[in-house]
């Protein structure tokens, strides 16, 4: 049955529909593969029995012609999404004992669409990290080369898709946490427009930047999965009350593209292989009929510092609720209220999370707010206007996803060097724009990604362009 797990989501839906195979078979195949590749450490929890039961129900529904759009498709959720009565850890010791009493909207929507949740994927602690090394549950190995990092923070989801442990996986992206691991693992990852997917039940890192998305085998699969995850949700005030487009249709539509390339971008790519593969990808698209235009994004060079003020600031407040009082880790050695706070948080949080809480707390402190936080907000607005201006001329913007391919686990110890992993991905988060990463070549024999950024709510356009690229190339195929 191992060939079933290699199939694209599109083919799996078709095969289940015409009863070429059953959900029981495909679910069983994935569960086997998960067991076989346990050493990759992709999953924090696996729901074996429950998945098998749900597969039987799915097969019944299919037999009765009552199949829902994703009926019987086995998927995985990043362990940042709350699922009722399931452990939801966010990769942290702090929540290693947290059983959620409610479900996230992302889970509910995909569950309602008929998908089967095989388990919950490993991630950097509270989504803070670019290598999956900050997880309390240990790092994930890159399935292509196990010495290397799968990227982060959605490393578990990207590696699980690459290793054929699920049909597709949900993920989240605050500064590149979907696109960078997708690039490292040679898979397709999309972060939609901020507000397109509900954040209800998705554990917050930086509320104004966090956005749920999809990691899948290819753009077409990502389009289908995203379609069933998107939509307005009253429970999330920042959710957009806009119609959900039929991405499945749009991904294959005949669309014309004008691709913008930021002035000075190509010359500034330091890695030769990354630069060459980027130029190659652009020329493939150009030959296919896309128009290429130079655009100006004068302020994106300030993205990284602005991001590393705003994200930690929001995180310092978002993570204040982990105080050992109502849920989560509570220190045993407590003799006062102060102890309870300090010891529970000291023991429950890892180093990177603490770093960011410190940075954020500092940036919001009296006397520093204007110098840091307010200034960062101003930069953010300038970056948004840069993009608004650019999208008057182009339908998408291309950049590399990352300035390098995957690196060896444990090789980056300087936090700032790690933060620079996000240099190309952060601008889309600051502006709230949809952005995706597709495999576009290799550097040092490891995949690298092409990033496409779209205008607000134009996920369909960048998916369409990505699909075009994947029809012309085989970088996305697992070899």
């Amino acid at each position, binding site marked *: 049955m191992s060939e079933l797990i290699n199939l694209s989501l599109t083919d799996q839906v078709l095969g289940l529909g015409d009863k070429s195979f059953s959900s029981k078979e495909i679910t069983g195949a994935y569960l086997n593969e998960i067991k076989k590749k346990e050493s990759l450490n992709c999953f924090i929890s696996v729901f074996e029995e429950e998945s098998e039961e749900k597969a039987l129900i799915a097969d019944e529904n299919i037999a009765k012609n009552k199949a829902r759009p994703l009926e019987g498709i086995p998927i995985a959720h990043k362990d940042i999404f709350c699922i009722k009565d399931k452990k939801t850890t966010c990769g942290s010791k702090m929540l290693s004992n947290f059983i959620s009493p409610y479900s996230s909207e992302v889970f509910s929507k995909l569950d309602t669409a008929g998908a089967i949740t095989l388990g919950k994927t490993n991630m950097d602690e509270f989504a803070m990290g670019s290598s999956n090394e900050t997880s309390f549950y240990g790092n994930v190995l890159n399935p292509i080369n196990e010495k290397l990092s799968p990227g982060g923070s959605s490393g578990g989801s990207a590696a699980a898709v690459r290793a054929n442990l699920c049909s597709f996986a949900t993920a989240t992206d605050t500064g590149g946490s979907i696109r960078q691991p997708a690039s490292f693992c040679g898979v397709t990852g999309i972060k939609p427009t901020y507000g397109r997917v509900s954040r209800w039940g998705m554990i917050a890192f930086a509320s104004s930047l966090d956005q749920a998305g999809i990691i899948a085998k290819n753009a077409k699969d990502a389009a289908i999965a995203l379609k069933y995850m998107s939509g307005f949700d009253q429970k999330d*005030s920042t959710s957009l009350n806009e119609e959900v487009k039929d991405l499945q249709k749009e991904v294959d539509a005949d669309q014309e593209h004008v691709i913008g390339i930021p002035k000075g971008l190509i010359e500034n790519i330091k890695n030769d292989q990354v630069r060459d593969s980027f130029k190659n990808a652009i020329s493939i698209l150009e030959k296919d009929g896309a128009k290429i235009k130079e655009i100006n994004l004068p302020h994106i060079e300030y993205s990284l510092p602005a991001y590393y003020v705003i994200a930690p600031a929001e995180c310092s407040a978002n993570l204040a609720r982990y105080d050992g009082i109502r849920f989560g880790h509570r220190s045993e050695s407590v003799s006062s209220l102060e102890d309870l706070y300090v010891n529970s948080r000291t023991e429950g949080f890892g180093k990177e999370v603490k770093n960011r809480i410190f940075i954020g707390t500092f940036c919001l402190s009296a006397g520093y707010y204007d110098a840091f936080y307010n200034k960062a907000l101003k930069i953010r607005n300038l970056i948004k206007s840069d993009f608004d201006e650019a999208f008057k001329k182009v339908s998408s913007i291309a950049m590399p996803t990352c300035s390098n391919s995957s690196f060896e686990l444990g090789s980056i110890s300087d936090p700032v060097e790690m933060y620079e992993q996000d240099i190309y991905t952060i601008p889309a988060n600051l502006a709230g724009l949809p952005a995706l990463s597709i495999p576009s070549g290799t550097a040092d024999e490891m995949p690298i990604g092409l990033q496409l950024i779209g205008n607000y709510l134009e996920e369909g356009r960048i998916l369409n362009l990505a699909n075009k690229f994947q029809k012309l190339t085989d970088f996305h195929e697992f070899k």
Partner: protein
Amino acid sequence: MSLNNWQPVIGLEVHVQLATKTKLFSSSPIAFGAEPNTQASEIDLGLPGVLPVLNKEAISQALKFGCAINAEISEKVIFARKNYFYPDLPKGYQISQLDDPIVGKGSIEIKLGEKSKIIGVTRAHLEEDAGKSIHDLYSNNSAIDLNRAGTCLLEIVSEPDLSSAEEAVEYLKKIHSIVTFLGISDGDMSQGSMRCDANVSVKKPDDQELGTRTELKNINSFKFVEKAIIFEIDRQIKKLEKGEEIIQETRLYDSKKNLTRSMRSKEEANDYRYFPEPDLIPIKISKDQINDVRKNLPELPEIMKERFMKSYELSDDNAELVTINKETASFFEEVLSYKVSPKNAVNWITGDLFALLNKNDTNISESKVNPKHISEIIQNIEDQKISGPSAKKLLEIVWSEGGEIQELIQKEGLEQISNDDEIERFLDEVISENQKQFEQLKSGKDRLQGFFVGQVMKKTSGSASPQVVNKLLKDKLSK
């Protein structure tokens, strides 16, 4: 207390719990006295992944208050996170407002005897309440009840325009009357629906700058506000006259010992690290919305008082008394709807009924006595069907047991006997039993007249009309 030429300068921060059906950011119901932690949803508990959704009712209630005090209304409402750790603050931050409070500058007029004074209101903003810490339930642990967490508060901040404890109480009473007339709060201080902090300082009349202030917390009744401020003014004056300095600090009022004591100094004060709440988008308030609220404002106490003086010819004092709160005013008007004289209605309500309310420490809406009772008692007196003492007795019966006035008059035999023949029979009996006294009365001992009337009243259990007895006795004497 001797002011010794010192001028107190006082500003109040009043927290009013709004009478919304659900909490400010969740759909949990609000009811006082429910079992601990039964009115707290995942949002109120601050579970990982939850998001706030603004209760629109709170906005409209805050607008009512703003319009009632003729305040500036902000065009957009922005919420901010106020960060601090406390066990009954589930998220580790309170969602409050810093910039752009919903209600801006306004004013409230207070009466001080014959004079009146305008007190400036700096702002009024919406915020969520915290839960309650309970320290006396278990011997070694504190308990937390989160039922109150997330309830809607309107914090009304005054200018430092108050110059005595008496003025502070008048101001607080005025706010109480405004919010209860608007129906936006029950204003019940004993249940914490209205809470008050006071900023107190003293200065010499010539001083240009204000003295160092202290903030008094926990003064949750009109009486305590007065006592705490008086104590604090006295404490500050004594200190200053000894040449000592006032320390800027927060002080807690101890109502049992009637003193204030230091809680924390300025140095220990929290840096709340306010920043805009990223989970909520700014709310726009249109001119139409404000006009709509203004048009539909209920009649406020001042206007109602004027109307009562004019239409019912009440004195200033009486009109003030029956407009003391909304319940009393509606009670009064309902009594009048049964066509009794306004003067009698005021006398019964503010006299005998108020006495019973005060004695039993309750309010008019909770008493068994309803407007129909009062109107029927008055009508029966006006029609000379019952005597004054009987009326008082009736009120006491309905106060404790309720019931129908006509039935009670029958049952208790309180009907006044005004039939001359019947009363004459009783009088004759009394005369024959007291021949000696009657002779004395006849011979001019006038003070015995009361004795005979009294005896007849006794025989008829008070139901004879004293006027008729007197008239008949005079007839007999002149024979």
